[in-house]
Each structure stands twice: as C-alpha cells, then as structure tokens.
C-alpha cells in the first residue's frame, strides 16, 4: 500500500472539511437543548419530539414521500421505455435528435424547467397541487433514469432477445421475461436516483405546487426565512439520513449490477 504524502492528507482533509463541516454543524445543533440556534446548552433530543408533533411538518413530509414514490415510479417506467427504444429501436428518423433531447433536461437550469412547467399547467388549467408536483418531478427525473438504464442496455447482448423471440416469445414477453430481469439492477438504481432527486427538490416544486400541497424542502425554506429554529435542524438531519441511505442503496445496486455484468462477461470469456 502506498502511504499518503502530507500534501495528499491536506488536500483530502480540506476537501472533506468543505463538504461536511456545514452538515456536521447542522447535525450537532439538532441535538442542542437550547432554543437559540447558535448557543450550545447540552445534548437533547427534544426538537425531534417537537417535530413529530408538528402537524405542518408531518403533512409536508407525507406530501414529499407520496410525490417521491409516485413520480420516481412513473419516471422509471417512462425512462426505461425511452432508453429501450433509443438503444434498441434501430435506426429511425430523428434518433440522434431524440437521444440528444432526452439528455437535455440534465443540463437545463431548474428554474427554466420549473417555469416552463408552471406555464404549461396554467395553460392547461390544472389546479396546482400534489398532481402537478408529481408530473413535474416525473418530467425531470425521467431523463436520469433513462441515462442509467441505457448505459446498461448498451452492454446487453442482443442475441438474448433474439433467442427469446426465436423460442416463440412475443416481443413483450421477451422484454418482460428476459431483458427486464437482466437489466433490473439498473432499473432499481434508476428508481432510487429519481426518488432521491424528488425528495431533494425545492426549485421545481416551488414553481409547480399550489396552496394545498407543500413539500418538505419548501416547508424548511419558508420557515427558515422566519429564522432558523432547532426543529428545522432536526428535520434536516433526518433528511440527510434518508438521502444518505438512498444514495448508498443506489450505489450498492449499481455496484451489484456491475459485478453481475462482469461475472457474466468472465463466464462468457471462460466459454470462449
């Protein structure tokens, strides 16, 4: 093993300090007994208790969770379908244009995505609420799913699908029974990615929500404007925990997928 030089140690420390000190302070102060955010008065879990009895926060959490589950599920279905056609559809008119367009929302500023969706919903006369947030989140997280799934599909041996067709499976059966089980890890990590993105989102949700629906990030944002309360710290700590779990699960799933693909390739190489 190479030992790290002192320069490496300093670079690494600096990087991680910048990344994690703010969050660390937030986590520490969420356990502060004092009502004053900046004064440490001993350890307490009091704010977590108060948070659990705060109806407004619980409602917002429930809305966020519903939005995240529904929108990431729809995004996964749509994103997988789009990836499948773009990778598998052969050469059709405008294919390059379509594959470029599906990645465009990845680099589109959220403000623009939010604004355009808002205009669309107003134009359609849709009442803004949970439904519009779900639609908006589906729209922007779908392309992330599509990127994850299509990178797996590219390395997928096409003759497996042909074999399924050859054995009498309909194209839908071939997809359901052969393609989907094999690309499942990528689909799952796509879902987790969409889920965490939806959980985090503030900008797009602010544009597309109405008075009846407030997501947790929006609730935090609006209450912070009236001053930071220890309750918010506690809430943020819980959110950090959830997102961390989500990210770890997603990376484990994709690592599993990669390992599995590698194992398949090695097995194929052994047969050669």
């Amino acid at each position, binding site marked *: 093993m190479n030992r790290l030089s002192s320069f490496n140690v300093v670079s690494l420390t600096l990087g991680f300090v910048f990344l994690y000190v703010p969050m660390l302070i937030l986590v520490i102060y969420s356990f502060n007994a004092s009502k004053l955010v900046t004064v440490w008065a001993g350890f307490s879990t009091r704010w977590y208790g108060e948070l659990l009895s705060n109806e407004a926060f619980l409602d917002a959490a429930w809305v966020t969770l519903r939005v995240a589950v529904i929108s990431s599920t729809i995004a996964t279905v749509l994103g997988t379908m789009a990836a499948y056609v773009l990778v598998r559809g052969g050469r059709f008119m405008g294919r390059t244009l379509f594959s470029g367009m599906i990645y465009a929302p990845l680099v589109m500023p959220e403000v623009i995505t939010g604004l355009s969706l808002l205009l669309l919903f107003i134009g359609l006369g849709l009442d803004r609420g949970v439904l519009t947030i779900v639609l908006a989140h589906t729209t922007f997280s779908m392309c992330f799913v599509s990127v994850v799934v299509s990178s797996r599909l590219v390395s997928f*041996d096409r*003759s*497996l699908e*042909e*074999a*399924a*067709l*050859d*054995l*009498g*499976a*309909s*194209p839908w*059966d*071939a997809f359901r*029974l*052969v393609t989907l*089980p*094999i690309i499942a890890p990528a689909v799952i990590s796509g879902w987790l990615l969409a889920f965490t993105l939806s959980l985090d989102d503030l900008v797009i949700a602010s544009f597309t929500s109405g008075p009846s629906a407030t997501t947790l990030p929006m609730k935090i944002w609006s209450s912070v404007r009236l001053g930071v309360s220890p309750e918010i710290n506690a809430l943020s700590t819980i959110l950090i925990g959830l997102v961390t779990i989500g990210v770890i699960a997603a990376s484990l799933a994709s690592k599993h997928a990669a390992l599995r693909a590698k*194992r*398949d390739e090695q*097995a*194929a190489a*052994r*047969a*050669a």
Partner: protein
Amino acid sequence: MAETVFAPWDDPTEKPLIRFHNVTKRFGDFTAIDDLTLDIFEREFFALLGPSGCGKTTMMRMLAGFENPTEGAIELAGQDIAGVPANKRAVNMMFQSYALFPHLTVWDNIAFGLRRESKDKAAIAARVEEMLKLTRLEKFARRKPHQISGGQRQRVALARSLAKAPKLLLLDEPLGALDAKLREATQFELMDIQEKTGTTFVIVTHDQEEAMTVASRVAVMDEGRVMQVATPERIYEAPDSVYVADFIGDVNLLHGTAAPSGEDTYVVTWSANEAPVQAASTRSFSTGQTCHLAIRPEKVAIHKDKPEADNAVQGKVLDIAYLGNLSTYHVELPTGDIIKAQVANTRRISRRDFTWEDPVWVSWSKTAGVLLAE
C-alpha cells in the same frame, strides 16, 4: 445392403423443405445475398460454408426471421415465410454466443420455449427431462449458465433449441467456442442427435473440416453467391471452380491451355519449358482454352528417380512440413512453381528418403486432377 442411400437432392419427385427462390438481400448499398436459389431437403444436415462476410449468417438470419429478403422468396414446407415474425416460425436457432438466459437455470432455459405455447406443466417437464437426457445434462439442471463449462453450455443451447421439436434447426457456428478435441467429439454428438431426432439441420461455419464431417451436403459461398452445392466428397474431389478447389483443403493449381487428345482427355500446356501434362475431364474444353488443373497433394507421389507415370516433373525439395501422420513436401520446379506432395508416414521413425534441396520427381496420374475452366 438393402439400405438406400440418403440423397433426396437426386430425386426429382422429392419436395424441398426450404426453397430459396432468387433471394437477394441488400443492406443499403451492400449486397449480402445476390440472387440466390437453393433447395434444402427434409432430414438433411446442410452446411453453409464460406469465409466471413460471404453472406452465410445473413441467410441463416433470414431463415430464422430476423431479416427479410429484399427480393425473392423463401419457402418453408411450401409456404412463403416472408413477413412471418421469428416467434411464429417452426424454426429454432442455436446462437453462436449460445445466448443462454443468465438469470434462468439450465432447466428453465430449456423450458422457456415450451412455456410460450403450452400451459401443461407435466408435458413441459417431461419434454425438458427428455432433452436433458438427450444432451446428458441431467446433473446440471439446477445450475445457472455461468456455473457450467463451455461444452455444457453448448449442449444447453442445443437442448433449448431442440425442445420445441422444430421442423428446422439453425446452428450458427455452434462449435466455434470449443477447443479442438471437444469440438471433434461434439461434431459426432451433433450428427448423432440429428439422426435421432430426424430434424433438418442447417449449420453455418467457416471451418471446412467441420462442414465436411457433419454435413450431408455443403454449400460453398463467396460474396453472397453459392459457388457449389454438393456432398462433401464431391466438393472435395470434384470441385467445379478454382474458388471451391482452393477454399476446401490444400490444392496444387497449374494454369495453362487445353487441347483435346482423345475421348475425355486433354493435354494441358502450362509452361514453355516443361512438357505438357495429361488430364482426364468430363467437362469439355476447346483447343487453346484457358484452364486450371487442380491436383490434391495426397494424389501426388514423390520419387528419387524418374517414375513411369502419366505426368512427371522434376524439381527440388524446398520445404518439408511434418504433421505427424503425414508429411507434406514442397517441391520447387525450375519454373518457380511449387508442387505439394503429401505422403503418409506409415512407419514409425522411418528414415526419410528425401531431405531439403534433394532433386526429386513428382508424379500424378491423368485422373488425379480436376480440369477447371475458372
């Protein structure tokens, strides 16, 4: 022996199972198959042989239903199969990569096709067991494809494609991934299974030995055209073009002009400094017509002194290739041409009569070679 020889292609009353009728397939500007007409009969083991890019895989994919001909028609048992999708054809294919489903066990892989058309669990189980027995895979039924060896995977692929008892089984370079010993054993196994099941097999291969071993008839292909369709013996002994003679096995080619010298015999003038050679041919040539004499190395004898033979030329030994069972002598003639003569090493540790640079005679009879126009 009362047994009749299996040769439906010589029987004009026999209906072919597959008929390629002026089939052309283009991919953009590239013509993969060029106006091809071909009949394949029931219970045949038919080999499509050719270098890579000759169109043999395209023909197979058209039979399987993954490609459609640009022009012409393909008939299966008298029915035009254009437009019938792959999943509705009574044709199954064994893929070059085997294409086993990695998430399913050997048992489920074999059952996959059966489950698509039947709900009868007992019947499916019985058929799968039968296939496992046929391919001697009973012990591996519960394993996943990555847990078995290459040879076993190859047998799973075969069992899976045979499970639905197709009218026609397509095999795309089925033995390409196996090592030489295993390949030889598997070739005989394939022939055995083909005979037991009575299925028509069409095999695509670039390995001529494989094609010659397994096939009842071989089609030699080049650039989208069929050069010759015949039994392995005829392909080897009576090729009808220089391409086929050269593609299959080793061959000596002498280029010259023909002149008739009696019934079905010709004199071939091939060099200004060498005596003309005699060759028998049922194919007729006019005086002065350009021709090529193709002689297999094992039909050329090598001698110290001038032999009594129809044709004999002198040269010196340039190279000796010792192959164990055979030795091939490369004899250089004064004209610069090289004639290969193959001798069986029938005795162990025999003293070699000839060595490098020795002056020798090579000879062959007038019926040894095949006279070809092109």
